[in-house]
């Protein structure tokens, strides 16, 4: 088997995650789909690391994880505070950002 299959898997997962962001309305699920996209890119990075024979790709994946952790913390805090004031976790309910 050619390890390039990992890249196909990564592309597939990324696409599914992106579609999830577009389709789901629950902010938490939407956020999970974002995490899925990040994981898919991490897989691609690890595969590239293997392809090139150095560890830089893994380092970048590591940093991606750290940033994702920070992002999740802040994002979930935002979701919680929105839920507190609006009693809804649906992104469609926060639609005041229009003319």
């Amino acid at each position, binding site marked *: 088997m050619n390890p390039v299959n990992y890249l196909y898997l990564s592309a597939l997962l990324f696409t599914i995650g992106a579609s999830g*962001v*577009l389709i789901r309305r629950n902010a938490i699920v939407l956020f999970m789909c974002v995490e899925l996209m990040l994981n898919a890119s991490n897989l691609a990075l690890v595969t590239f690391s293997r392809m090139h024979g150095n560890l830089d790709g893994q380092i970048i994946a590591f940093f991606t994880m750290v940033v994702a952790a920070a992002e999740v913390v802040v994002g979930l805090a935002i979701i919680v505070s929105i839920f507190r004031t609006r009693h809804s976790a649906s*992104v469609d309910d926060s*639609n005041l950002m*229009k003319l």
Partner: protein
Amino acid sequence: MNSLIPLLVAAPLAGAVLLLLGGRAFDRLGHWLATALAALSFGFGLALFSDMLGRDAEDRTLTQHLFSWIPVNGFQADISFQLDQLSMTFVLLITGVGTLIHLYSVGYMAHDERRRRFFAYLNLFLAAMLLLVVADNYLLLYFGWEGVGLASYLLIGFWQHKPSAATAAKKAFIVNRVGDMGLSIAIMLMFVEFGSFAFEPVFGAAGSASEGKLTAIGLMLLLAACGKSAQVPLQSWLGDAMEGPTPVSALIHAATMVTAGVYLITRSGAIFNLAPDAQTAVVVVGAVTLLFGAIVGCAKDDIKKALAGSTMSQIGFMILAAGLGPIGYAFAIMHLVTHGFFKAGLFLGAGSVMHGMNDEVNMRHYGGLRKYMPVTFVTFGLGYLAIIGFPGLSGFFSKDKIIEAAFAKGGTEGWILGLCTLVGAAVTAFYMTRVMILTFFGEKRWQPDAEGHDPHPHESPKTMTVPMIVLAFGSVFAGGLFAFHESFLTWLEPVTGHEEGNSPLTPLVVTLLTTACMLAGVALSYLMYGRSAVPVVPPYGSPLTRAARRDLLQDDFNHAVLVRPGSALAAALVYFDSRGLDGFVNGLAATIGGVSSRLRRIQNGYVRTYALSMFGGTLVLVATTLLMRSV
């Protein structure tokens, strides 16, 4: 002594500022302050005059540089003054007659609640007129010129509650604007041609300029003079300007303001002397106006309008004389000064009559007033004798000289001009006699006024009669004084120059002819008005009379030739603007608005829609990248 020149202007200007800005504090004594300041200015003028007499004829010009107004490289506009014999004459006339009219107005406007404002405007007018005559460059002259226009607008429309007065003021202002445009163009031409607009460099360099350019400048100056001096074709405002209070008519539209055009042409003599075509135009304008005004004056029943026609005609005499060149300049100014006396006196007399007759202006409602207003009758009568050129009085000397000068032009031109002036003199005698008979002789034709009060004619108060008496003295003696040993000519010659010309007739013949014409006019008028009762309702009259009653159709002409095409053009432009331009602009705006309001729906506020468009954009980017790589 030089430092007195700015004070000439400053005194009345200070009066105007104080009275306009000082508020009610000046309500009680403001008019006396204004009169005192006018008199003070006259005092300065007298002091300068005596100083000037003490020096040699060649050394009499005084200059005073006050400050640089616009000091730009190559463009020097200075506030500086020049007082020579010509300016001096005007200064004395303006301040002298002006002071008398201030005094007269104290009585005439005693019961007007806006008296303080009136006197402020009078002072403003004096200041502007003085600035006009003592300026040493055309730009400062233009400043004074515009100031005179403004002051006349304010004074004509002083009784602004009357729609006719407001309209007359606007009319005067607008017609004057046409002339002012001529002056501003003339100044621009001078600056382009000579690089300066001060008198000295312009007149010094005039000899080296081409005749075409000088003619252009001269015609523009003539246009300016026509506007300010109410000459054909810009004469229409003067008759309507009689809507102002009578002192205003006396001061502005008889003695001073309308003479500004004569001053301008005389002052610019150095240019006109080198531009014969422009001179011809001046002469033609003068001759036409002379007859035009005289005919209008014959038909008017309104005493002030009859006098206004007379003014127009007399100014025509002066313009004609000024157009004759060095032959006539001095006589134009001489007639101007004597006219200043007797016309001011006539207007003040007319005001006095109106004052006694409940502001009635129709001469057909007067009659037999000589018994009720003896002082007015005598002073008015002396003014009348002066204006018709009765031998020995002022008008006789000055008008006679102009007629002589007209003949002295020589050739066919001389004959035509001479005959015109002779006819003018005869008609002048005719219509002035008519005014005299209708007003002071015959039986009473008094009518009750609008409120049903019968008029009780009475002599006016001292403040009004004293100026009339003083002016009557001027009317009687000024001409003789000026003609004595040709003193006026000698006085003005260093400024205006003088030529004798070659008259086909001797002065004695001209004098006899003039007197004969005058007597014929008087006799005709007596036959028509003095021997039979004057009808209260004006007869239908000949076509010429009816046209003259309508100012010889000048307003109809202006309306047909200028106003109607102007209105049509404006309407067309408005149509083009509202349909064409606005339609285009509004249509564009509506299109953009419509597109925007449809595009706005994309901004629905749902974050997922935005995410979708981002994802779509990413898709396009990736596709493009791949496509570019494969190509």
